[in-house]
């Protein structure tokens, strides 16, 4: 049993070391930008060639891009997952849809960006706009929403469905009034994970929707917007060294959002698993 102890200790040390390194990097990046964050930084426009002011339009723009993305991927994703778990038997079509979804999930984000550019910006004529960028991110997040929702729906016990059907409800009623509500909390967790995955996406937005600078917030979905990750790239790419505080602040804000998102996922999961055991 001594080998077990040694393996446990050595593997444990390595695991903790990795986690420590990761936490150090994240913590360091958050902390080094923390003193640049204040109310003005969060609520004002960049000024004086990005050396002053804040990142308000980038925060708002990220929210716009995410809204369009979710407006697309959440309804479509939930419906497609419903098809997979409730309506399809183990047939060819189901296999095809599952395969398509897996392939979509594996496609590099930069390829989604090119597709968005080619379809939304050029073919549909949306140009560089919130809608082109948002839909691109929406398509990227679709496989995440489908897989997570599919998993949540499958986890609903069969007895729920049988009871509902026994009471005379048809398939649609059972699905939308019993099964989905029963798994809504898990579905939401899945959506939060999807947000966490796409909120930091830079390359697709650079091709389809990101303005480097705007003087006022966009008034509609056909205008370009700034976004946090692209702002970070732009600051580190085309501005001189004097924007460093802005850059560090932006990185810090984005990381805090990501950490908060995943923390909420962890808390929600914990609650769910307790409920299951409970």
């Amino acid at each position, binding site marked *: 049993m001594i*080998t077990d102890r040694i393996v446990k200790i050595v593997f444990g040390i390595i*695991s903790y070391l990795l986690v420590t390194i990761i936490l150090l990097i994240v913590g360091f990046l958050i902390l080094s930008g923390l003193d640049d964050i204040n109310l003005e930084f969060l609520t004002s426009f960049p000024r004086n060639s990005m050396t002053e002011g804040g990142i308000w339009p980038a925060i708002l723009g990220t929210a716009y891009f995410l809204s369009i993305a979710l407006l697309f991927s959440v309804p479509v994703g939930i*419906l497609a997952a419903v098809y997979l778990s409730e309506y399809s038997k183990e047939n060819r079509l189901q296999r095809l849809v599952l395969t398509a979804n897996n392939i979509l999930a594996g496609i590099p984000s930069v390829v989604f960006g090119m597709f968005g550019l080619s379809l939304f910006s050029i073919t549909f004529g949306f140009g560089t706009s919130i809608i082109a960028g948002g839909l691109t991110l929406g398509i990227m997040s679709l496989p995440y929403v489908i897989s997570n929702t599919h998993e949540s729906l499958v986890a609903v016990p069969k007895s729920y469905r049988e009871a509902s059907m026994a009471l005379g409800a048809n398939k649609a*009623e059972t699905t939308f009034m019993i099964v989905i509500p029963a798994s809504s909390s898990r579905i939401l967790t899945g959506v939060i994970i999807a947000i966490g995955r796409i909120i930091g996406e830079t390359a697709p937005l650079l091709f389809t929707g990101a303005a480097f600078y705007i003087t006022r917030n966009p008034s509609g979905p056909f205008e370009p917007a700034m976004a946090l990750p692209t702002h970070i790239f732009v600051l580190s790419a085309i501005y001189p060294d004097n924007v460093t505080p802005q850059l560090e602040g932006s990185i810090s804000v984005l990381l805090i959002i990501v950490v908060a998102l995943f923390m909420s996922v962890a808390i929600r999961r914990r609650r769910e698993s307790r409920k299951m055991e409970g």
Partner: protein
Amino acid sequence: MSRKRIDLFSRVLVTVAALLTMVILFGIFFFLISDGVKVFGKISLKDFFLSTRWYPTYEDAEFGILALLSGTLAVTGLTLLISIPLGFISAIFLAEFSSRKTHDFLKYVFELTAGIPSVVLGSFGLKYISRWLMELFPMKVWTGLNILNASLMLSVLAMPYFVTLIEDALKAVPVDQKEASLALGANMTSTLFRVLIPQARSGILNAIILGTNRIVGETMVVLMIAGGATMIPQSIFDPVRPLTAAIAGEMGEVELASTHYFALFMIGVVLLMISLIFTVTAMRLKRGMRR
């Protein structure tokens, strides 16, 4: 609408939504390939794939992607060498040796890691790792932006995949097999290496394939810190320009519908094919596992 109609309507609705995923997938292939193949109107297949000279913006432009491809291979290979063993160790610790609390905490951090925006890791590598590498190996490192730097940062992104998926594979092994081995007096360690890992090998392979797919497609990290030289690397300290870096670095300023534009789309097709092969292989493995 009657109840029956609604029932029928929702059946149609969910089927359409499901079919939409296939439509999107075909759309992606269609748009990339239809733009990508146009490059072969100007450039021969051989010059595109077998030439190392990538000079897309000159009067006498050249569009050979071999050096870019070698960059992708080098960065991916080194990242795998770093992250697979470490991911494996953490997965084993999580699956078999950790208490519930430890498990939840470590798992949370690894999940969070998967969400770190790559542009952030890119700027970290640019500013810090690059300097540390030059100070650590002053004789060998002639530039701080190189394969090793990119691989270190990519490992941070890839490790969580390996940890999560390998742990899942280990946990998927039936409990009775593990218990039988333990009952026979074997300790945990030998049970692990004689029973669990061999039993989980197709799941582990599946994890490695999916993780590799992620690494190949990563963009911002390699754009910012892989070094950007279109050369065939001789050592891990050489700078390279992987496929994704070329797309991201040049797409923003390329003239629409030019040969350069089509060449970048063809690179997109190459990436698409790589990820298609990886995903389908992984799915085959998984199906074989279930049987």
